């Protein structure tokens, strides 16, 4: 142990003299140490950081809904030419370890009892639920005053596109739809 080693206050370095002061160590050694710290630190950060990204995005990447045709209800309950009927179906959605029942509401109309229009009740602007207003013969969204026509076309307000339609089929007088 040399006499020049001791607490910092007695090391004879005037305050304000930094790393490259008069008693600076060999710059090659300093550079090597800085590079080593950077490499080891970077490796550890990547070793935790990359799995962390996969971890955080995990449940968002693997969520699954129900596949195939889902029964919505009897065709007979939809009267031709009448106001859109809101029909509800329960679907199962799996997110992570949670299996949750979710209600899907669909506006169903038919003009002739053969061909149907299945409209999502989710406003295409920012996702609020629309409802049928008989007096104005349209779907109204309460969030930003959007209006959609009977077939989902935009009549007023900010929505960028008509209401979404579900694919459907009729079998044994039952109406089926597919999750979008």
């Amino acid at each position, binding site marked *: 142990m040399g006499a020049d080693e001791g607490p910092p206050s007695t090391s004879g370095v005037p305050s304000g003299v*930094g790393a490259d002061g008069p008693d600076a160590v060999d710059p090659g050694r300093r550079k090597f140490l800085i590079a080593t710290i950077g490499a080891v630190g970077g490796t550890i950060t990547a070793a935790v950081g990359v799995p962390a990204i996969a971890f955080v995005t995990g449940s968002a990447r693997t969520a699954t809904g129900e596949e195939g045709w889902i029964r919505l209800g009897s065709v007979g309950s939809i009267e031709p030419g009448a106001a859109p009927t809101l029909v509800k179906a329960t679907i199962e959605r799996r997110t992570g370890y949670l299996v949750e029942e979710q209600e899907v509401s669909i506006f169903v109309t038919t003009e002739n009892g053969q061909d149907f229009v299945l409209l999502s009740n989710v406003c295409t602007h920012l996702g609020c639920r629309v409802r049928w207003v008989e007096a104005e013969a349209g779907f109204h969204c309460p969030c930003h005053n959007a209006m959609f026509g009977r077939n989902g076309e935009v009549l007023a307000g900010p929505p960028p596109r008509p209401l979404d339609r579900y694919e459907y089929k009729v079998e044994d007088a039952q109406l089926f739809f597919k999750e979008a």
Partner: protein
Amino acid sequence: MQPAANDDRLKQTGDWLDERTGWRGNWTAVFLRKIPKVSWAYTLGSATLFTLVLQFVTGILLTLYYVPEPQQAYASVTYITNELSFGWLIRGIHHWGASAMVLLAILHMVRVIIYGAYKYPREVTWLTGVGLLLLTFAFGFTGYLLPWDQRAYWATVVGTQIGSVPPVVGGFTKDLMLGGPEISGLTLSRFFGAHVWVLPSLLVALVAIHLFLVVRNGITSPPKRDE
């Protein structure tokens, strides 16, 4: 772009920041301070701090999925461990990191005792260190319950029974820990609250004081033969 021009721009940015924050002085005081000739034993404190940072990062990640509720706690931990991408790794680091942190903190303390580094003028650093060790134990105790499996449940039964031993205050101490007369969903939520909010807040404050004192007082040189 030329490297020289890049260095120049970097220096300009550094100067701009330094003029407004004085960061260079702090950087020099913290990272470029003079230290005596030391051995690897002196890295134990930094090693403990490193495991602490790992615990913070992995712990925060785990809270994104963990649910502190009796019906879901075990299911969410199972999901993290078995189904989620790299969930086994994040939870594994947190699990083993907890043990590593306790071990390193104790080794760090042993080093300080052996080298006599707790003496004047570093008594307050020592005292905050004792507080940090106790907090680390509290982290281990509260975290142990969170998986909500048989081992966690019965370990907490035993641990809180130990808390009931002191005369007069023992019974209430136990009820306070459990949030009632026995383990329930309330125990789980208060252990979780303690583990992720109360203890980290205290720990961060104490670590800040501890590190400030380490930098302020400098570290001890190893004792010499004639001391």
